[in-house]
Protein backbone atom coordinates (compact mmCIF):
# COMPACT_ATOMS: atom_id res chain seq x y z
CA UNK A 1 0.00 0.00 0.00
CA UNK A 2 2.89 2.29 0.73
CA UNK A 3 4.53 1.42 -2.58
CA UNK A 4 1.85 3.29 -4.47
CA UNK A 5 2.76 6.57 -2.86
CA UNK A 6 6.42 5.74 -3.16
CA UNK A 7 6.26 5.35 -6.93
CA UNK A 8 6.07 9.11 -7.31
CA UNK A 9 9.31 10.35 -5.75
CA UNK A 10 8.73 13.99 -4.96
CA UNK A 11 12.11 15.46 -5.85
CA UNK A 12 13.80 13.71 -8.71
CA UNK A 13 15.49 16.63 -10.41
CA UNK A 14 19.03 15.45 -9.64
CA UNK A 15 19.14 12.09 -11.36
CA UNK A 16 16.99 9.09 -11.99
CA UNK A 17 19.05 6.82 -9.74
CA UNK A 18 17.03 8.16 -6.80
CA UNK A 19 14.13 6.02 -7.94
CA UNK A 20 16.28 2.93 -7.52
CA UNK A 21 17.68 4.02 -4.17
CA UNK A 22 14.17 4.56 -2.87
CA UNK A 23 13.11 1.15 -4.13
CA UNK A 24 15.90 -0.70 -2.25
CA UNK A 25 14.07 -1.40 1.00
CA UNK A 26 10.97 -2.46 -0.92
CA UNK A 27 13.01 -4.95 -2.95
CA UNK A 28 14.35 -6.37 0.30
CA UNK A 29 10.82 -6.50 1.70
CA UNK A 30 9.54 -8.32 -1.39
CA UNK A 31 12.43 -10.80 -1.26
CA UNK A 32 11.69 -11.48 2.39
CA UNK A 33 8.01 -12.13 1.65
CA UNK A 34 8.89 -14.63 -1.06
CA UNK A 35 11.43 -16.42 1.12
CA UNK A 36 8.95 -16.46 3.97
CA UNK A 37 6.27 -18.02 1.81
CA UNK A 38 8.66 -20.73 0.62
CA UNK A 39 9.61 -21.57 4.21
CA UNK A 40 6.10 -21.66 5.60
CA UNK A 41 2.97 -20.87 3.52
CA UNK A 42 1.21 -19.71 6.71
CA UNK A 43 3.57 -16.75 6.58
CA UNK A 44 1.43 -15.00 3.96
CA UNK A 45 -1.88 -15.73 5.69
CA UNK A 46 -3.79 -12.50 6.20
CA UNK A 47 -3.96 -12.98 9.99
CA UNK A 48 -0.23 -13.42 10.26
CA UNK A 49 0.63 -10.49 8.00
CA UNK A 50 -1.84 -8.20 9.71
CA UNK A 51 -0.48 -9.23 13.14
CA UNK A 52 3.07 -8.55 12.09
CA UNK A 53 2.45 -5.24 10.36
CA UNK A 54 0.33 -4.07 13.29
CA UNK A 55 3.17 -4.96 15.65
CA UNK A 56 5.64 -3.01 13.56
CA UNK A 57 3.49 0.13 13.87
CA UNK A 58 5.17 1.41 17.06
CA UNK A 59 8.65 1.18 15.64
CA UNK A 60 7.46 2.58 12.30
CA UNK A 61 5.82 5.62 13.89
CA UNK A 62 8.80 6.39 16.11
CA UNK A 63 11.15 5.77 13.19
CA UNK A 64 9.33 8.38 11.07
CA UNK A 65 10.32 10.91 13.73
CA UNK A 66 13.82 9.45 13.86
CA UNK A 67 14.10 9.98 10.09
CA UNK A 68 13.80 13.73 10.73
CA UNK A 69 16.35 13.68 13.55
CA UNK A 70 18.86 11.55 11.63
CA UNK A 71 18.30 13.41 8.37
CA UNK A 72 19.11 16.69 10.17
CA UNK A 73 22.36 15.17 11.40
CA UNK A 74 21.20 14.23 14.91
CA UNK A 75 20.51 10.98 16.76
CA UNK A 76 18.07 10.05 19.50
CA UNK A 77 18.85 7.13 21.80
CA UNK A 78 16.17 8.06 24.30
CA UNK A 79 13.07 7.07 22.28
CA UNK A 80 12.51 3.69 23.96
CA UNK A 81 12.74 5.08 27.49
CA UNK A 82 10.73 8.11 26.41
CA UNK A 83 7.96 5.84 25.11
CA UNK A 84 7.88 4.03 28.46
CA UNK A 85 7.85 7.31 30.40
CA UNK A 86 5.07 8.83 28.29
CA UNK A 87 3.07 5.60 28.60
CA UNK A 88 3.39 5.76 32.38
CA UNK A 89 2.45 9.44 32.63
CA UNK A 90 -0.49 8.91 30.31
CA UNK A 91 -1.89 5.91 32.22
CA UNK A 92 -1.52 7.63 35.60
CA UNK A 93 -3.26 10.74 34.26
CA UNK A 94 -6.11 8.73 32.75
CA UNK A 95 -6.60 6.69 35.93
CA UNK A 96 -6.67 9.87 37.96
CA UNK A 97 -9.23 11.47 35.67
CA UNK A 98 -11.69 8.55 35.62
CA UNK A 99 -13.86 9.86 38.51
CA UNK A 100 -14.27 13.22 36.73
CA UNK A 101 -14.30 12.39 33.05
CA UNK A 102 -15.29 8.72 32.77
CA UNK A 103 -14.24 7.33 29.41
CA UNK A 104 -13.50 10.86 28.22
CA UNK A 105 -10.28 10.54 30.15
CA UNK A 106 -8.97 8.50 27.19
CA UNK A 107 -8.84 11.45 24.75
CA UNK A 108 -7.66 13.67 27.60
CA UNK A 109 -4.86 11.18 28.26
CA UNK A 110 -3.94 11.21 24.57
CA UNK A 111 -3.62 15.00 24.69
CA UNK A 112 -1.41 14.76 27.78
CA UNK A 113 0.72 12.11 26.06
CA UNK A 114 1.27 14.42 23.07
CA UNK A 115 2.19 17.33 25.34
CA UNK A 116 4.57 15.11 27.31
CA UNK A 117 6.15 13.83 24.08
CA UNK A 118 6.69 17.31 22.70
CA UNK A 119 8.12 18.44 26.04
CA UNK A 120 10.54 15.48 26.12
CA UNK A 121 11.54 16.23 22.51
CA UNK A 122 12.09 19.87 23.40
CA UNK A 123 14.40 18.89 26.27
CA UNK A 124 16.44 16.63 23.97
CA UNK A 125 16.51 19.28 21.24
CA UNK A 126 17.63 22.11 23.49
CA UNK A 127 20.37 20.04 25.14
CA UNK A 128 21.72 19.12 21.71
CA UNK A 129 21.38 22.51 19.99
CA UNK A 130 21.65 25.22 22.64
CA UNK A 131 23.74 23.10 24.99
CA UNK A 132 25.89 21.99 22.01
CA UNK A 133 26.31 18.47 23.38
CA UNK A 134 26.90 15.54 21.02
CA UNK A 135 23.46 14.00 20.30
CA UNK A 136 24.76 10.54 21.19
CA UNK A 137 25.77 11.62 24.70
CA UNK A 138 22.87 14.03 25.28
CA UNK A 139 20.22 11.45 24.44
CA UNK A 140 22.13 8.68 26.24
CA UNK A 141 21.71 10.89 29.29
CA UNK A 142 18.00 11.50 28.79
CA UNK A 143 17.56 7.79 27.99
CA UNK A 144 18.74 7.01 31.52
CA UNK A 145 16.61 9.79 32.97
CA UNK A 146 13.36 8.68 31.28
CA UNK A 147 14.02 5.03 32.20
CA UNK A 148 14.63 5.94 35.84
CA UNK A 149 11.50 8.09 35.91
CA UNK A 150 9.24 5.25 34.71
CA UNK A 151 10.90 2.90 37.22
CA UNK A 152 10.27 5.48 39.94
CA UNK A 153 6.65 6.13 38.92
CA UNK A 154 5.90 2.39 38.93
CA UNK A 155 8.00 1.51 42.05
CA UNK A 156 9.71 -0.94 39.72
CA UNK A 157 6.44 -2.78 39.13
CA UNK A 158 3.59 -2.10 36.71
CA UNK A 159 1.22 0.82 36.18
CA UNK A 160 -1.96 -0.84 34.89
CA UNK A 161 -4.74 1.10 33.19
CA UNK A 162 -8.04 1.45 35.07
CA UNK A 163 -10.40 -1.45 34.35
CA UNK A 164 -13.25 0.84 33.32
CA UNK A 165 -11.07 2.32 30.54
CA UNK A 166 -9.66 -0.93 29.29
CA UNK A 167 -12.56 -1.91 27.01
CA UNK A 168 -13.16 1.64 25.81
CA UNK A 169 -9.52 2.07 24.79
CA UNK A 170 -8.88 -1.44 23.44
CA UNK A 171 -9.99 -0.76 19.82
CA UNK A 172 -7.15 1.70 19.29
CA UNK A 173 -4.79 -1.27 19.05
CA UNK A 174 -7.11 -4.19 18.30
CA UNK A 175 -9.84 -2.49 16.24
CA UNK A 176 -10.07 -2.31 12.45
CA UNK A 177 -11.47 0.11 9.88
CA UNK A 178 -12.50 -1.52 6.61
CA UNK A 179 -10.57 -4.62 7.69
CA UNK A 180 -7.31 -2.73 8.27
CA UNK A 181 -6.03 -2.63 11.88
CA UNK A 182 -6.09 0.89 13.31
CA UNK A 183 -2.36 1.03 14.25
CA UNK A 184 -1.52 0.40 10.57
CA UNK A 185 -3.76 3.27 9.51
CA UNK A 186 -2.21 5.54 12.11
CA UNK A 187 1.31 4.70 11.03
CA UNK A 188 0.40 5.29 7.37
CA UNK A 189 -1.09 8.65 8.31
CA UNK A 190 2.00 9.58 10.32
CA UNK A 191 4.24 8.55 7.42
CA UNK A 192 2.12 10.49 4.92
CA UNK A 193 2.28 13.65 7.03
CA UNK A 194 5.97 13.04 7.64
CA UNK A 195 6.77 12.70 3.95
CA UNK A 196 4.72 15.79 3.16
CA UNK A 197 6.72 17.82 5.69
CA UNK A 198 10.05 16.36 4.63
CA UNK A 199 9.58 16.57 0.86
CA UNK A 200 7.05 19.35 0.25
CA UNK A 201 7.80 22.02 2.81
CA UNK A 202 10.59 24.53 3.27
CA UNK A 203 11.35 22.98 6.66
CA UNK A 204 11.95 19.57 5.09
CA UNK A 205 14.54 21.00 2.70
CA UNK A 206 16.24 22.85 5.57
CA UNK A 207 16.36 19.58 7.49
CA UNK A 208 18.21 17.74 4.73
CA UNK A 209 20.46 20.76 4.10
CA UNK A 210 21.52 20.98 7.76
CA UNK A 211 22.16 17.25 7.85
CA UNK A 212 24.11 17.19 4.61
CA UNK A 213 26.40 20.07 5.51
CA UNK A 214 25.76 22.23 8.56
CA UNK A 215 28.28 24.92 7.62
CA UNK A 216 26.91 25.46 4.13
CA UNK A 217 23.42 25.53 5.57
CA UNK A 218 24.44 28.18 8.10
CA UNK A 219 25.98 30.35 5.37
CA UNK A 220 22.74 30.12 3.43
CA UNK A 221 20.93 31.61 6.39
CA UNK A 222 19.33 28.47 7.84
CA UNK A 223 19.07 28.41 11.63
CA UNK A 224 20.70 25.14 12.70
CA UNK A 225 19.38 25.44 16.24
CA UNK A 226 15.80 25.92 15.10
CA UNK A 227 15.92 23.20 12.44
CA UNK A 228 17.39 20.53 14.70
CA UNK A 229 15.22 21.42 17.70
CA UNK A 230 12.10 21.11 15.55
CA UNK A 231 13.33 17.68 14.39
CA UNK A 232 13.51 16.55 18.04
CA UNK A 233 10.03 18.01 18.66
CA UNK A 234 8.68 15.95 15.76
CA UNK A 235 10.46 12.91 17.21
CA UNK A 236 8.84 13.53 20.61
CA UNK A 237 5.38 13.83 19.04
CA UNK A 238 5.92 10.58 17.10
CA UNK A 239 6.97 8.75 20.28
CA UNK A 240 3.79 10.02 21.94
CA UNK A 241 1.63 8.76 19.05
CA UNK A 242 3.34 5.37 19.30
CA UNK A 243 2.69 5.35 23.06
CA UNK A 244 -0.98 6.13 22.42
CA UNK A 245 -1.24 3.04 20.18
CA UNK A 246 0.84 0.96 22.59
CA UNK A 247 -1.13 1.48 25.83
CA UNK A 248 -4.22 -0.55 24.84
CA UNK A 249 -2.13 -3.56 23.75
CA UNK A 250 -1.08 -4.74 27.21
CA UNK A 251 -2.79 -2.02 29.22
CA UNK A 252 0.23 -1.32 31.42
CA UNK A 253 3.53 0.49 31.63
CA UNK A 254 6.53 -1.22 33.25
CA UNK A 255 10.23 -0.42 33.63
CA UNK A 256 10.88 -2.82 30.74
CA UNK A 257 8.45 -1.17 28.31
CA UNK A 258 10.16 -0.02 25.13
CA UNK A 259 13.46 -1.63 26.06
CA UNK A 260 15.96 -1.44 23.15
CA UNK A 261 13.38 0.17 20.86
CA UNK A 262 15.94 2.87 20.06
CA UNK A 263 18.15 0.33 18.32
CA UNK A 264 15.25 -1.10 16.31
CA UNK A 265 14.23 2.42 15.34
CA UNK A 266 17.70 3.38 14.17
CA UNK A 267 18.02 0.07 12.29
CA UNK A 268 14.67 0.69 10.57
CA UNK A 269 15.77 4.16 9.48
CA UNK A 270 19.06 2.91 8.10
CA UNK A 271 17.53 -0.13 6.35
CA UNK A 272 15.10 2.38 4.86
CA UNK A 273 17.93 4.15 3.08
CA UNK A 274 18.64 7.20 5.26
CA UNK A 275 22.34 7.64 5.99
CA UNK A 276 23.30 7.76 9.68
CA UNK A 277 25.52 10.77 8.97
CA UNK A 278 22.49 12.81 7.89
CA UNK A 279 21.21 14.25 4.62
CA UNK A 280 18.25 13.12 2.59
CA UNK A 281 15.66 11.19 4.60
CA UNK A 282 13.53 8.35 3.21
CA UNK A 283 10.27 8.22 5.15
CA UNK A 284 8.59 5.36 3.27
CA UNK A 285 11.83 3.41 3.23
CA UNK A 286 11.89 3.80 7.02
CA UNK A 287 8.38 2.35 7.28
CA UNK A 288 9.43 -0.57 5.07
CA UNK A 289 12.49 -1.00 7.30
CA UNK A 290 10.32 -1.29 10.40
CA UNK A 291 8.12 -3.91 8.71
CA UNK A 292 11.22 -5.82 7.55
CA UNK A 293 12.56 -6.02 11.12
CA UNK A 294 9.30 -7.37 12.47
CA UNK A 295 8.92 -9.84 9.57
CA UNK A 296 12.38 -11.23 10.24
CA UNK A 297 11.51 -11.89 13.89
CA UNK A 298 8.22 -13.48 12.81
CA UNK A 299 9.96 -15.65 10.24
CA UNK A 300 12.38 -16.93 12.88
CA UNK A 301 9.47 -18.35 14.87
CA UNK A 302 7.56 -19.69 11.87
CA UNK A 303 10.56 -21.53 10.46
CA UNK A 304 11.70 -24.68 12.16
CA UNK A 305 15.34 -24.91 11.22
CA UNK A 306 16.81 -22.12 13.36
CA UNK A 307 17.82 -23.18 16.86
CA UNK A 308 16.33 -20.93 19.56
CA UNK A 309 19.91 -20.16 20.62
CA UNK A 310 20.87 -18.80 17.19
CA UNK A 311 17.86 -16.63 16.39
CA UNK A 312 19.66 -13.33 17.07
CA UNK A 313 22.60 -14.34 14.87
CA UNK A 314 20.37 -15.22 11.93
CA UNK A 315 18.47 -11.96 12.37
CA UNK A 316 21.76 -10.07 12.21
CA UNK A 317 22.77 -11.85 9.02
CA UNK A 318 19.42 -11.11 7.36
CA UNK A 319 19.64 -7.41 8.26
CA UNK A 320 23.10 -7.22 6.73
CA UNK A 321 21.92 -9.02 3.58
CA UNK A 322 18.99 -6.59 3.34
CA UNK A 323 21.46 -3.71 3.49
CA UNK A 324 23.61 -5.34 0.79
CA UNK A 325 20.61 -5.76 -1.53
CA UNK A 326 20.02 -2.07 -1.06
CA UNK A 327 23.62 -1.13 -1.68
CA UNK A 328 23.66 -3.03 -4.99
CA UNK A 329 20.39 -1.51 -6.12
CA UNK A 330 21.88 1.87 -5.24
CA UNK A 331 24.92 1.42 -7.42
CA UNK A 332 22.91 0.54 -10.51
Amino acid at each position, binding site marked *: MSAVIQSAPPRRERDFAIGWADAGPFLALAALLVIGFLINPDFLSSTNLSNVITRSAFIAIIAVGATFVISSGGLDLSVGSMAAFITGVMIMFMNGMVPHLGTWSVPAGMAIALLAGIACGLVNGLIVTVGKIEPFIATLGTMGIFRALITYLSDGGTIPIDRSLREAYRPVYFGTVAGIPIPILISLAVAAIGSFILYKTKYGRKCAAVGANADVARYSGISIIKTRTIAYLIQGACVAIAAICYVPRLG*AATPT*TGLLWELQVITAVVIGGTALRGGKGHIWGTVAGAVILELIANLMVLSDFVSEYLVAAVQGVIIIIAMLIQRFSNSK
Partner: protein
Amino acid sequence: MTRTKWVAAAALGALLMAGQAVAADKKVVAVSIPAADHGWTAGVVYHAQAAAKEINAAFPDVEVIVKTSPSATAQVSALEDLSAGRKLDALVILPHTSEELTMPVKAVKDGGAFITVVDRGLNDPAIQDLYVAGDNIAVGKNTAKFLVDKLGGKGNLVVLRGIPTVIDDERIKGFQDGIAGTDLKILDIQYANWNSDEAFKLMQDYLAKYPQIDAVWANDDDMLLGVLEAIKESGRTDIKFALGGNGMKEIVKKVIDGDAVTPVETPYPPSMIKTAIYMTVANLVGQAPVRGNVKLDAPLITQANAAEFYFPDSPF
Protein backbone atom coordinates in the same frame (compact mmCIF):
# COMPACT_ATOMS: atom_id res chain seq x y z
CA MET B 1 43.15 -3.66 44.90
CA THR B 2 42.29 -0.37 46.57
CA ARG B 3 38.78 -1.66 47.02
CA THR B 4 39.99 -4.72 48.85
CA LYS B 5 42.08 -2.48 51.08
CA TRP B 6 39.09 -0.31 51.82
CA VAL B 7 37.02 -3.34 52.66
CA ALA B 8 39.79 -4.59 54.91
CA ALA B 9 40.01 -1.18 56.58
CA ALA B 10 36.27 -1.08 57.01
CA ALA B 11 36.29 -4.56 58.46
CA LEU B 12 39.09 -3.59 60.83
CA GLY B 13 37.14 -0.52 61.89
CA ALA B 14 34.11 -2.66 62.53
CA LEU B 15 36.24 -5.02 64.58
CA LEU B 16 37.65 -2.18 66.70
CA MET B 17 34.18 -0.86 67.36
CA ALA B 18 32.90 -4.29 68.32
CA GLY B 19 33.78 -3.62 71.92
CA GLN B 20 31.60 -0.53 72.04
CA ALA B 21 28.72 -2.25 70.27
CA VAL B 22 28.34 -4.78 73.06
CA ALA B 23 27.52 -1.92 75.35
CA ALA B 24 25.13 -0.37 72.81
CA ASP B 25 21.59 -1.61 73.22
CA LYS B 26 20.60 -2.04 69.53
CA LYS B 27 21.54 -4.98 67.34
CA VAL B 28 22.06 -3.90 63.76
CA VAL B 29 20.87 -6.03 60.81
CA ALA B 30 21.89 -4.69 57.41
CA VAL B 31 19.91 -5.78 54.34
CA SER B 32 21.59 -5.30 50.97
CA ILE B 33 19.49 -5.95 47.86
CA PRO B 34 19.37 -4.94 44.17
CA ALA B 35 17.39 -1.80 43.35
CA ALA B 36 13.97 -2.27 41.74
CA ASP B 37 14.44 -2.47 37.98
CA HIS B 38 11.69 -4.93 37.11
CA GLY B 39 8.72 -6.59 38.77
CA TRP B 40 10.53 -9.25 40.77
CA THR B 41 13.23 -6.99 42.25
CA ALA B 42 10.52 -4.42 42.98
CA GLY B 43 8.82 -7.16 45.02
CA VAL B 44 12.09 -7.86 46.85
CA VAL B 45 12.43 -4.18 47.79
CA TYR B 46 8.82 -4.07 48.95
CA HIS B 47 9.12 -7.17 51.16
CA ALA B 48 12.49 -6.13 52.60
CA GLN B 49 11.09 -2.74 53.59
CA ALA B 50 7.95 -4.34 55.01
CA ALA B 51 10.07 -6.75 57.10
CA ALA B 52 12.27 -3.90 58.35
CA LYS B 53 9.26 -1.87 59.40
CA GLU B 54 7.58 -4.77 61.18
CA ILE B 55 10.72 -5.91 62.99
CA ASN B 56 11.79 -2.42 64.03
CA ALA B 57 8.34 -1.94 65.53
CA ALA B 58 8.22 -5.36 67.22
CA PHE B 59 11.77 -5.47 68.63
CA PRO B 60 12.96 -2.14 70.04
CA ASP B 61 16.47 -3.48 70.50
CA VAL B 62 16.88 -4.50 66.82
CA GLU B 63 17.50 -2.09 63.97
CA VAL B 64 17.03 -3.37 60.40
CA ILE B 65 18.56 -1.13 57.72
CA VAL B 66 17.67 -1.72 54.05
CA LYS B 67 20.02 -0.54 51.29
CA THR B 68 19.26 -1.00 47.58
CA SER B 69 21.96 -0.90 44.91
CA PRO B 70 21.53 -0.60 41.12
CA SER B 71 24.65 -2.63 40.23
CA ALA B 72 27.19 -5.08 41.63
CA THR B 73 29.78 -2.33 41.98
CA ALA B 74 27.31 -0.13 43.82
CA GLN B 75 26.45 -3.05 46.08
CA VAL B 76 30.11 -3.52 47.01
CA SER B 77 30.29 0.17 47.94
CA ALA B 78 27.06 -0.13 49.90
CA LEU B 79 28.56 -2.99 51.96
CA GLU B 80 31.57 -0.82 52.72
CA ASP B 81 29.36 2.08 53.78
CA LEU B 82 27.13 -0.11 55.92
CA SER B 83 29.97 -1.70 57.82
CA ALA B 84 32.10 1.45 58.04
CA GLY B 85 29.95 3.42 60.46
CA ARG B 86 28.97 0.74 62.95
CA LYS B 87 29.31 -2.87 63.88
CA LEU B 88 26.91 -5.11 61.99
CA ASP B 89 25.44 -7.99 63.93
CA ALA B 90 24.04 -9.55 60.79
CA LEU B 91 23.97 -9.01 57.04
CA VAL B 92 21.17 -10.26 54.80
CA ILE B 93 22.25 -10.03 51.19
CA LEU B 94 20.77 -10.82 47.80
CA PRO B 95 23.91 -10.47 45.68
CA HIS B 96 23.83 -8.92 42.20
CA THR B 97 26.53 -11.34 41.06
CA SER B 98 28.29 -14.14 42.85
CA GLU B 99 31.80 -13.30 41.65
CA GLU B 100 32.02 -9.65 42.62
CA LEU B 101 30.28 -9.89 45.99
CA THR B 102 32.04 -12.92 47.46
CA MET B 103 35.12 -11.15 48.87
CA PRO B 104 33.29 -8.05 50.17
CA VAL B 105 30.78 -10.26 52.02
CA LYS B 106 33.64 -12.27 53.47
CA ALA B 107 35.12 -9.02 54.80
CA VAL B 108 31.85 -8.24 56.55
CA LYS B 109 31.80 -11.74 58.02
CA ASP B 110 35.34 -11.30 59.27
CA GLY B 111 33.99 -8.25 61.10
CA GLY B 112 31.87 -10.63 63.14
CA ALA B 113 28.52 -10.42 61.39
CA PHE B 114 26.09 -13.29 60.89
CA ILE B 115 25.74 -13.73 57.10
CA THR B 116 22.48 -14.65 55.40
CA VAL B 117 22.63 -15.10 51.63
CA VAL B 118 19.40 -15.05 49.64
CA ASP B 119 18.55 -16.47 46.19
CA ARG B 120 21.93 -16.23 44.43
CA GLY B 121 24.77 -18.05 46.16
CA LEU B 122 28.30 -16.75 46.66
CA ASN B 123 31.32 -18.46 45.12
CA ASP B 124 32.37 -19.74 48.53
CA PRO B 125 29.42 -21.28 50.41
CA ALA B 126 31.53 -21.43 53.57
CA ILE B 127 30.98 -17.69 54.05
CA GLN B 128 27.26 -17.93 54.65
CA ASP B 129 25.69 -18.91 57.95
CA LEU B 130 22.25 -19.18 56.42
CA TYR B 131 21.18 -19.61 52.81
CA VAL B 132 17.57 -19.00 51.72
CA ALA B 133 16.45 -19.62 48.14
CA GLY B 134 13.53 -20.73 46.04
CA ASP B 135 13.40 -23.82 43.88
CA ASN B 136 13.49 -23.06 40.17
CA ILE B 137 13.43 -26.71 39.17
CA ALA B 138 10.22 -27.18 41.16
CA VAL B 139 8.69 -24.16 39.40
CA GLY B 140 8.96 -26.06 36.11
CA LYS B 141 8.25 -29.49 37.51
CA ASN B 142 5.10 -28.65 39.47
CA THR B 143 3.66 -26.78 36.49
CA ALA B 144 4.42 -29.77 34.28
CA LYS B 145 2.80 -32.17 36.74
CA PHE B 146 -0.37 -30.09 36.78
CA LEU B 147 -0.57 -30.11 32.98
CA VAL B 148 0.11 -33.85 32.77
CA ASP B 149 -2.76 -34.44 35.23
CA LYS B 150 -5.26 -32.10 33.67
CA LEU B 151 -4.58 -32.95 30.03
CA GLY B 152 -4.59 -36.67 30.72
CA GLY B 153 -0.94 -37.00 29.74
CA LYS B 154 -1.58 -36.02 26.14
CA GLY B 155 -1.48 -32.77 24.19
CA ASN B 156 0.43 -30.06 22.36
CA LEU B 157 2.37 -27.46 24.35
CA VAL B 158 4.25 -24.28 23.50
CA VAL B 159 6.77 -22.78 25.90
CA LEU B 160 8.16 -19.26 26.30
CA ARG B 161 11.48 -19.02 28.09
CA GLY B 162 13.24 -15.98 29.55
CA ILE B 163 16.82 -14.74 29.32
CA PRO B 164 19.56 -17.37 28.94
CA THR B 165 20.58 -17.81 32.60
CA VAL B 166 20.80 -20.57 35.19
CA ILE B 167 17.35 -19.60 36.51
CA ASP B 168 15.80 -20.04 33.08
CA ASP B 169 17.65 -23.29 32.37
CA GLU B 170 16.57 -24.81 35.69
CA ARG B 171 12.91 -23.95 35.16
CA ILE B 172 12.95 -25.41 31.65
CA LYS B 173 14.78 -28.52 32.84
CA GLY B 174 12.27 -29.08 35.64
CA PHE B 175 9.46 -28.74 33.14
CA GLN B 176 11.01 -31.13 30.63
CA ASP B 177 11.65 -33.68 33.39
CA GLY B 178 8.05 -33.27 34.51
CA ILE B 179 6.56 -34.17 31.14
CA ALA B 180 9.11 -36.85 30.30
CA GLY B 181 7.49 -40.20 29.57
CA THR B 182 4.08 -38.71 28.76
CA ASP B 183 2.52 -37.89 25.40
CA LEU B 184 2.68 -34.17 26.09
CA LYS B 185 4.66 -32.69 23.24
CA ILE B 186 6.49 -29.36 23.28
CA LEU B 187 5.79 -28.03 19.78
CA ASP B 188 8.04 -25.03 20.19
CA ILE B 189 10.22 -23.25 22.71
CA GLN B 190 11.71 -19.77 22.20
CA TYR B 191 13.23 -16.94 24.23
CA ALA B 192 11.01 -13.96 25.04
CA ASN B 193 13.39 -12.37 27.57
CA TRP B 194 10.89 -12.22 30.46
CA ASN B 195 9.26 -9.30 28.66
CA SER B 196 5.48 -8.92 28.13
CA ASP B 197 5.80 -7.29 24.72
CA GLU B 198 8.10 -9.92 23.31
CA ALA B 199 5.88 -12.63 24.75
CA PHE B 200 2.84 -11.05 23.08
CA LYS B 201 4.58 -11.17 19.69
CA LEU B 202 5.92 -14.68 20.20
CA MET B 203 2.50 -15.98 21.21
CA GLN B 204 0.91 -14.39 18.14
CA ASP B 205 3.49 -16.20 16.05
CA TYR B 206 2.89 -19.51 17.83
CA LEU B 207 -0.83 -19.09 17.19
CA ALA B 208 -0.19 -18.43 13.50
CA LYS B 209 2.10 -21.42 13.23
CA TYR B 210 0.16 -24.08 15.15
CA PRO B 211 -3.54 -24.68 14.56
CA GLN B 212 -3.93 -26.80 17.71
CA ILE B 213 -2.35 -25.79 21.02
CA ASP B 214 -3.60 -27.36 24.25
CA ALA B 215 -1.54 -25.41 26.74
CA VAL B 216 1.01 -22.62 26.99
CA TRP B 217 3.66 -22.26 29.65
CA ALA B 218 5.49 -18.96 30.06
CA ASN B 219 8.16 -19.45 32.69
CA ASP B 220 7.47 -16.03 34.18
CA ASP B 221 4.31 -14.01 34.86
CA ASP B 222 5.37 -10.87 32.99
CA MET B 223 5.43 -12.99 29.85
CA LEU B 224 2.14 -14.64 30.75
CA LEU B 225 0.42 -11.23 30.64
CA GLY B 226 1.49 -10.83 27.00
CA VAL B 227 0.48 -14.40 26.19
CA LEU B 228 -3.02 -13.94 27.61
CA GLU B 229 -3.53 -10.75 25.60
CA ALA B 230 -2.46 -12.48 22.37
CA ILE B 231 -4.80 -15.41 23.00
CA LYS B 232 -7.69 -13.10 23.84
CA GLU B 233 -7.18 -11.09 20.66
CA SER B 234 -6.93 -14.19 18.43
CA GLY B 235 -10.29 -15.52 19.66
CA ARG B 236 -8.82 -19.04 19.70
CA THR B 237 -10.58 -21.51 21.99
CA ASP B 238 -8.32 -24.57 21.70
CA ILE B 239 -5.98 -23.36 24.47
CA LYS B 240 -7.13 -24.95 27.69
CA PHE B 241 -4.39 -23.68 29.99
CA ALA B 242 -2.01 -20.73 29.98
CA LEU B 243 0.28 -20.89 33.01
CA GLY B 244 3.09 -18.72 34.31
CA GLY B 245 5.35 -18.74 37.33
CA ASN B 246 6.85 -16.37 39.97
CA GLY B 247 3.77 -15.32 41.94
CA MET B 248 2.93 -11.92 40.45
CA LYS B 249 -0.08 -10.45 42.25
CA GLU B 250 -2.14 -10.00 39.05
CA ILE B 251 -1.81 -13.71 38.28
CA VAL B 252 -2.41 -14.86 41.88
CA LYS B 253 -5.56 -12.72 41.75
CA LYS B 254 -6.69 -14.69 38.70
CA VAL B 255 -6.21 -17.92 40.65
CA ILE B 256 -8.25 -16.50 43.56
CA ASP B 257 -11.00 -15.50 41.13
CA GLY B 258 -11.11 -19.05 39.73
CA ASP B 259 -9.90 -18.22 36.21
CA ALA B 260 -10.49 -21.18 33.88
CA VAL B 261 -7.35 -20.79 31.73
CA THR B 262 -5.00 -19.84 34.58
CA PRO B 263 -6.31 -21.85 37.55
CA VAL B 264 -2.92 -22.39 39.22
CA GLU B 265 0.39 -20.60 39.74
CA THR B 266 3.84 -21.56 40.98
CA PRO B 267 5.75 -19.16 43.23
CA TYR B 268 9.34 -18.09 43.11
CA PRO B 269 8.43 -15.50 45.67
CA PRO B 270 10.32 -12.22 46.18
CA SER B 271 9.01 -12.52 49.75
CA MET B 272 11.87 -14.98 50.36
CA ILE B 273 13.87 -11.91 51.42
CA LYS B 274 11.34 -11.39 54.20
CA THR B 275 11.62 -15.02 55.26
CA ALA B 276 15.39 -14.59 55.40
CA ILE B 277 15.26 -11.36 57.43
CA TYR B 278 12.85 -12.87 59.97
CA MET B 279 14.99 -15.99 60.39
CA THR B 280 18.11 -13.90 60.84
CA VAL B 281 16.45 -11.76 63.49
CA ALA B 282 15.10 -14.88 65.22
CA ASN B 283 18.68 -16.01 65.61
CA LEU B 284 19.69 -12.65 67.11
CA VAL B 285 16.87 -11.99 69.55
CA GLY B 286 15.30 -15.35 70.29
CA GLN B 287 18.43 -17.45 70.31
CA ALA B 288 16.71 -19.75 67.80
CA PRO B 289 19.50 -21.45 65.84
CA VAL B 290 18.93 -21.10 62.06
CA ARG B 291 22.23 -22.04 60.44
CA GLY B 292 21.88 -24.10 57.25
CA ASN B 293 20.29 -24.14 53.83
CA VAL B 294 16.63 -23.35 53.41
CA LYS B 295 15.05 -24.16 50.09
CA LEU B 296 11.56 -22.75 49.80
CA ASP B 297 9.47 -25.11 47.75
CA ALA B 298 7.35 -23.96 44.81
CA PRO B 299 4.03 -25.52 45.77
CA LEU B 300 1.16 -25.20 43.36
CA ILE B 301 -0.86 -22.11 44.26
CA THR B 302 -4.53 -23.00 43.94
CA GLN B 303 -7.72 -21.24 44.89
CA ALA B 304 -7.48 -22.93 48.31
CA ASN B 305 -4.11 -21.51 49.38
CA ALA B 306 -3.76 -18.45 47.12
CA ALA B 307 -4.43 -15.94 49.90
CA GLU B 308 -1.12 -16.90 51.51
CA PHE B 309 0.73 -15.76 48.38
CA TYR B 310 -1.33 -12.66 47.57
CA PHE B 311 0.19 -9.26 48.41
CA PRO B 312 -2.19 -6.64 46.98
CA ASP B 313 -0.02 -3.71 48.15
CA SER B 314 3.20 -5.02 46.65
CA PRO B 315 4.23 -3.68 43.24
CA PHE B 316 4.67 -7.29 42.11
